């Protein structure tokens, strides 16, 4: 298998998992706090969890896209 990723890419990929987890926790935590504040249990928690998940997915996809494109370009060469 050819090497497509630099050391910088490896470092960025290594942080992705934690970034995804933190996004999810922040979304859910924020939703929970708002729920307790506005007495709307459990709707804002669910909404926050979805928002956190979406944000986490966005972070992962955005980081992966340029690397995937570069790898595909190298493969076609």
């Amino acid at each position, binding site marked *: 298998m050819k090497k497509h990723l630099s050391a*910088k890419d490896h*470092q*960025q990929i290594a*942080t992705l998992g*934690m*970034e995804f987890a*933190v*996004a999810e926790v*922040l979304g859910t935590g924020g939703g929970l706090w708002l729920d307790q504040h506005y007495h709307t249990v459990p709707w804002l928690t669910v909404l926050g969890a979805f928002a956190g998940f979406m*944000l986490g997915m*966005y*972070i992962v996809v*955005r980081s992966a896209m340029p690397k995937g494109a570069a790898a595909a370009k190298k493969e076609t060469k």
Partner: protein
Amino acid sequence: MNITETISHHILDHDWGITVGSFHLPITTHSVTIFCVSVILFFSLWWLVNFHRGKAGRLLTVLSQEYVSFIRNGLVKPYLGEEGRQFLPYFCTLFIFILSVNLAGMLPNMKTATSNISVTAALALCSGGMIIYGGLKFHGVIGFIKGFVPSGTPAWLVPLIFPLEVVSTLIKVCVLAIRLFANMISGHMVLLCLLLLVFILGKMNLYAGAGVLLPAMFLEIFMTFLELLVAFLQAYVFTLLTAIFTGAVVHTH
């Protein structure tokens, strides 16, 4: 033996501050460790700059030059380019400070201040400030804000992408704090749990306690060396990721 109490006594911070009336000055084990490390680092470097004529002084001068070269060529130049020269003092300070605080926890009667989320959060906030400063310095306010939106984004997507990008930058800073905190606290917990294993099993059955003593001590020594490695590694990773994030803001293309 209350295991939770023992673990929390050894891992968590202790406040033995002074209270005068309604004012409380918190003096904690972690803050004392940070203060000691800062004073030692400050005076060592001051001595190195002013009184480095002896043989030991010359050796330390060469070592410090090598250290600065390592930070400049290994961390700052590859990610920030020539523009990174002005950020070099921050990265040199960051690495040696985190490393010293991590290693201070290996000394008797000292605690690893980086196993406190408040300390790592403060360090991450400094790095976050550096990232924002880098962006503002090289692109100005408008350019920095524009840099949050990836090039080629359709105009109708900008209101959605912009907050996502801002929050993802904040998350990056949060991750810096959590990674350092989690790595440092987990090592100490493992060390303590291995040590407690001997006492717990010994209380249940004396022979079981005696039997587990040698393997636990062997693992304890192994984990201590691993802790030393983690102390270096985490200081390096924190500095490297700050350099990568600052570089991503400075070189947006």
